[in-house]
């Protein structure tokens, strides 16, 4: 090969490389127009809305063990999967309401067995025009209860049979009473799967473009974006926007920059300090919605199986040492949340909550002295409690790198110091904390949030003794505080199976009061939800603690 030949080949190779990169830049963007019809509201039609998404789900198989990611379900699953009941605001609280999939509320028979009958709207259909029938209900139950790689069988494992003999009537018979049937079953965070389109739930791993909701998937480019377009065959009101793009922006600073720069028109950031600070500083051209009516509950959890928190007097003294309002005010006053919550039950379930159960725990040094004295602690010359030569020293664990929690711990440390306790901060990687140390009881005090996964109290999951993780059960169960109180087992256990809602509410309240007396947990704040939208967005923008902030997006329009 001569030198010029070699040069020509290099030039050719360079040209090919550059052209391939240019071609990459010119690749398919797939801009498909799909204008909605049947629009009754005033919001403008058409346009593409770009929303910043902080997280991407692992898959679109909502019931699969790769599922369970809230963000992906809010932005895809909740908008494409039909559901029997949805959680909607009613006055100052939320309640479960039948969706247009049903002709009315499902009928409940409680004796001799629990039987729920769903009457399906004959107009309800999948995006391929196939009617949604009782076969889909049965298929969904069979997949969750008997399929492989399932995230959570709760509730579906209580079903004995689903009668699909009539296409428009699904009759569900239970093996044992299950109270949370409205919001966990045939909706919840799984939706209803189409029996005629899916053989096995795992087929949905990489996404699906059929739909039983107002939107359907146009494409999902993993790690980058997922794009929804209107489902033109939806039986209800059709979306006004042509397209909605969810762009993955995992860095909070970049997310705010993208919102301020107009690259995205809505964001739903986690309530971290920098997010609250940015909002407090003002965001021109933005509408902000904050709510403390959430399914989250951040709390100080105490390990009742390990010293010093195995002593109820010690736990009580610590509870009377802290001014929780001071902490909450410092964290969230920028978004209008200034008071600590006083119940372990999530804020959106207020009819079930004893909302002032923990209100007695205010900073009161007299009560600290009394409680510590009962257990034989005395104050040393350095002002720290001591007993048998040991100082009242303990550690708190939380997730490392979480600025909000770090600040909470620092304020807590100061508060406890003045009350005579030494607190050391020992934060851990989230994987280690939740995957290993909390289940194995390797902590004294911990700060983390309990997140509601359905619209029903799950306090038994957190505080019934049957849910204490042990070696025998493979460290399963979420009762990390090792709370073992027969009264709580009875009360919270009854809530799980009580079909009379008023009775369930009263029982749960009694449970909250009993837990406050046992004080294995000290509720702190509801982790407010923050939704920021551009003023260009018009329509019913309303956050929903269970179905997410985008569930009414069918009514959104975009001003020029």
């Amino acid at each position: 090969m001569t030198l010029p030949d070699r040069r020509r080949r290099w030039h050719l190779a360079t040209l090919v490389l550059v052209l391939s990169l240019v071609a990459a830049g010119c690749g398919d963007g797939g801009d498909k127009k799909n204008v909605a019809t049947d629009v009754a509201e005033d919001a403008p039609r058409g346009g593409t809305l770009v929303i910043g998404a902080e997280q991407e789900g692992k898959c679109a198989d909502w019931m699969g063990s790769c599922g369970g990611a809230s963000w992906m379900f809010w932005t895809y699953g909740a908008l494409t999967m039909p559901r029997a009941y949805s959680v909607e605001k009613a006055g100052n609280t939320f309640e479960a309401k039948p969706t247009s999939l049903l002709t009315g509320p499902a009928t409940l028979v409680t004796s001799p067995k629990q039987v729920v009958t769903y009457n399906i709207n004959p107009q309800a259909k999948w995006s391929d025009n196939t009617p949604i029938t009782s076969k889909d209900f049965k298929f969904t139950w069979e997949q969750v209860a008997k399929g492989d790689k399932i995230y959570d069988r709760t509730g579906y494992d209580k079903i004995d049979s689903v009668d699909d003999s009539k296409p428009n009537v699904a009759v569900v018979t239970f093996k044992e009473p299950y109270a949370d049937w409205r919001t966990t079953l045939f909706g919840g965070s799984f939706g209803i799967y189409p029996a005629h389109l899916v053989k096995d739930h795992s087929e949905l791993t990489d996404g699906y473009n059929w739909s039983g909701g107002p939107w359907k998937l146009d494409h999902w480019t993993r790690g980058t974006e997922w794009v929804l377009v209107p489902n033109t065959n939806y039986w209800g009101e059709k979306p006004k926007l042509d397209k909605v793009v969810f762009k993955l922006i995992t860095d909070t600073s970049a997310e705010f920059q993208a919102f301020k720069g107009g690259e995205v028109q809505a964001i739903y950031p986690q309530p971290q300090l920098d997010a609250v600070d940015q909002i407090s500083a003002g965001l021109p051209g933005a509408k902000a919605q904050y709510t403390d009516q959430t399914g989250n509950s951040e709390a100080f959890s105490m390990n009742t199986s390990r010293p010093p928190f195995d002593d109820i007097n010690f736990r009580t003294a610590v509870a009377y040492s802290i001014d929780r309002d001071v902490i909450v005010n410092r964290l969230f006053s920028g978004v209008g949340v200034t008071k600590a919550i006083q119940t372990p039950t999530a804020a959106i379930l207020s009819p079930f909550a004893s909302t002032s159960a923990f209100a007695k725990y205010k900073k009161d040094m007299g009560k600290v002295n009394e409680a510590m004295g009962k257990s034989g602690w005395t104050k040393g010359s350095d002002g720290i409690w001591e007993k048998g030569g040991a100082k009242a020293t303990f550690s708190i664990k939380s997730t490392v790198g979480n600025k909000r929690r770090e600040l909470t711990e620092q304020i807590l440390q100061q508060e406890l110091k003045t009350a005579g306790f030494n607190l050391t901060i020992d934060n851990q990687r989230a994987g280690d904390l939740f995957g290993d140390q909390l289940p194995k009881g390797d902590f004294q005090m911990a700060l983390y949030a309990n997140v509601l996964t359905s619209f029903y109290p799950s306090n038994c999951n957190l505080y019934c003794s049957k849910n204490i993780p042990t070696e025998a059960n493979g460290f399963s169960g979420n009762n990390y505080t090792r709370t073992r109180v027969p009264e709580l087992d009875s009360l919270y256990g009854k809530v799980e199976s009580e079909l009379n809602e008023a009775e369930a509410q009263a029982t749960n309240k009694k449970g909250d009061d009993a837990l406050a007396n046992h004080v294995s947990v000290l509720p702190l704040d509801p982790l407010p939800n923050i939704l920021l939208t551009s003023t260009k967005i018009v329509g019913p923008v309303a956050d929903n603690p269970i179905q997410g902030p985008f569930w009414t997006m069918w009514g959104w329009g975009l001003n020029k």
Partner: protein
Amino acid sequence: MLSYVARRILFSIPVLLIASFLLFTAVRATFDPTARLRASRDPEAVQRARAELGLDKPVVAQYQDWLSGFVRGDWGESSSTQERVLPVIRRAAWHTFQLVVWGVLISAILAVAVGVFSAVRQYSIADHALTGMSFLGLAMPPFWFGLIAIQFLAVYPRDWFGLTQTPLFFVGLRSSTNVGFGDYARHLVLPVLTLTVQIIASWSRYQRSSMLDALSGDYVRTARAKGVPRRRVIFKHAFRNALIPLVTVMALDIGALAGGLVVTEQIFSIPGMGRLFVDSLLEGDANVLVAWTVVTATSVIAFNLLADVLYRLLDPRIRFS
């Protein structure tokens, strides 16, 4: 030379095996891929997943399972997304590849120009200014520079000039609604700038140093004494020789860049190899991590080898042994 290359490739196999085994073991020992399932209300979810992922077997057996599949072209399944690993790696590598190619191309041109100019005008005001800027570039953390660049080159100009959108984009590598090379270029500028600032600073120092060495060489002095024009002396004689050390450094750096640009990819929401590594690590996704390690290590080994070969090609006095 071919036997040398073959020998180097052969020696790299045990390196890859050891690296992949160590990483596999470390990930299994420290990360629990079922941790996420503990949020499930279903008490059996974790145990089911452990059995399905084969976590109940000894680590060595798990590694053997992975290795036997890997050598047969089956890179396994991601434990967190249940996707096949090969397309996951391919997709991430393509994003990183685009950044690296543009970054290296621009960095190489600018670094060589700056380095040569500084050396030729040694101790001039321009040389001092470029040296100062190089040190500034080296000292600037990419995460800080990236965010500042977004603010000053994208967000503020939009406000200052009343534009409907930012002149430069900073989320991903393309818009969903606007395709074409212009859109692609507007997405590329900021991440490539963030990536290149440190590289240009570093490479320009190498280039300046090796150019100064070359300019003080006897053969340059001889050429000047013989009356060869200055431009010809600089570019024909000194520059070609001064490129040799830089080419080696570049080859080594490019190999390392293939592992991803964690900070740049995070700030600019680019799903490349760096972000894949971090995400997989946090999920304890051993199959993806080990495949990532093999790809990255292979790239480092390949570019090391390329550096040696290029060295030989650029300097015929060097012999392989």
